[in-house]
């Protein structure tokens, strides 16, 4: 036995323990699944879930269908891990921004997924000599997350106070 073995074993065990605690505390394994409910585990994802659930794509697509790349399985799992760890890190360290917005990389991923499913429909409009330089949701503002996007509040329901 090398004299470094024990410290290394201790370090590995401590690391495993720390990771275990981290994973347990943050429910990071949830990221392995694809169910929208998985994303909704995290309460900061709740508005997106809620609004997605009431928008038109709930029938067709899950979060990962839009938010993870689908060119190939490696890209899919790599991105899944990268993005997942990022979200977990931000969440557990309490740095969640007031307004969560898709970053540029995500936007590219989402766009490629819109086109992936709707290729036939959009062929004649995205073709041509010039790059199709806008996002599908510049026009289809509510297909993914509904009218209210990432709203944390629903419209005040007047029926709670019925007239008379």
């Amino acid at each position: 036995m090398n004299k470094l073995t024990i410290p290394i074993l201790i370090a590995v065990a401590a690391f495993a323990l720390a990771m275990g605690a981290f994973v347990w505390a943050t429910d990071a394994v949830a990221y392995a699944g694809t169910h929208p409910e998985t994303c909704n585990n995290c309460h900061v994802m709740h508005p997106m879930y809620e609004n997605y659930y009431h928008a038109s794509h709930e029938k067709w697509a899950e979060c990962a269908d839009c938010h993870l790349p689908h060119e190939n399985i490696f890209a899919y799992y790599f991105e899944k891990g990268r993005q997942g760890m990022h979200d977990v890190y931000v969440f557990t360290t309490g740095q969640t921004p007031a307004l969560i917005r898709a970053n540029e990389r995500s936007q590219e991923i989402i766009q490629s997924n819109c086109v992936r499913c709707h290729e036939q429909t959009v062929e004649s409009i995205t073709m041509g000599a010039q790059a199709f330089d806008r996002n599908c949701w510049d026009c289809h503002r509510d297909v993914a997350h509904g009218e209210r996007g990432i709203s944390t509040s629903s419209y005040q329901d007047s029926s709670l106070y019925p007239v008379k």
Partner: protein
Amino acid sequence: FQKNQPAQGRAFEPLVEVKAMEPDSSVWGKNFPNQYDGLQKTATNNIDTTYGGSSAFSWLERDPRQKILFAGYPFSKDYNDDRGHANALEDVRATKRLNLNDEDPKHTPATCYSCKSSNNPGLWTDMGMAAYDAMTFNEMTPNINNAIGCANCHEAETMRLIATNPALIEGLEAQGKDWTTFSRQEMRTVVCANCHVEYYFAGPDKYLTFPWAKGTQIDQIISYYNEIGFKDWEYPDAGTPMLKAQHPEYEFFTAGSTHYNAGVSCADCHMPYVSDGAAKYSSHDVHSPLINPEQACGQCHTDVEYVVRRVNTIQDQVANTKIATEDAIIDAINAIKAAAANPNSDAALLDQARQLHREAQYMWDFLSAENSTGFHNPEYALKICADATNLARQAQMLAAQAANDPSLLKTGTYYAPAQ
């Protein structure tokens, strides 16, 4: 008893029982600490935005034309931007607009406390608003020891939003409206109309009245005032019977603005939901939404940066056009003064000039006293500027005709060196 608001249990047990119209917000605060904290925060807010914000900067310094426009009226002495709700009492007591000499027939009435304190709902219930308003400001002072608080907006037992100001209830009734039939979303705007509205003091006993009997649009309000022959003051040397407009946020916003028509309420922007851990509650730290646009606008608009830029564009355009209107009114004032000083002036034409001056300035003021620099209803703001400028220029022309003196047609007199 309220048709729109069936008795309904809260989702949780209150810790303490709050008695009806309890003026002390800290008592309510035991049950609702987040809301109470928010209200407390309004005391110390001081961030300014380009055109608004929470410091009490002076409008008379920022736009010295207003000193001329309000000449002869207390607003030319002291006129600051509004601050957070918790400062209401301090600010009304400190303003130099007060006249605390009770012997002077123009002394400040108790009515000036109407929108500044959570003691009011209780006092109005006990003594009636007529008796309240008939007192002087000084006489009322000992009864008032809380700034704006929970009792101004909520019913204690149910926490429903309610109309607490009798003037609001009567103002709505005059239009055949019954607030108890309003939906919750409507109340999220109407509750602000307890205070953020145009008002005047009717009769010698200074009865608080909202000039809404003909409707709440600007031309309806002007024709209401014309019909009852009301004036706030007379413009010195010009003799115009003037009107002062005050914070008509409610009337301005509800006059077909894009957000009002789309069903958005005051509270949506000024009291957005925020979360404290798992609890979601309405921010009671009411201030300019430009200070927290992610929460205030982001709930509906995904591109927050875009909408904020848009507010700037709109406000700049309104602010510039407003100055052009002020210049036109000042030209009119100077012409009317000169015509009034001329003994040969035609009295009938001069009176027509005064009438147009009165209306032009009231229109300008309606827009100017509204605190969003046009954003609450951009097109209305600019249309009002267009109309007011047109009337002001016609007032000047009538004054020149009255005095038969084309030299009264000089423009840009605000910029001319004083003689």
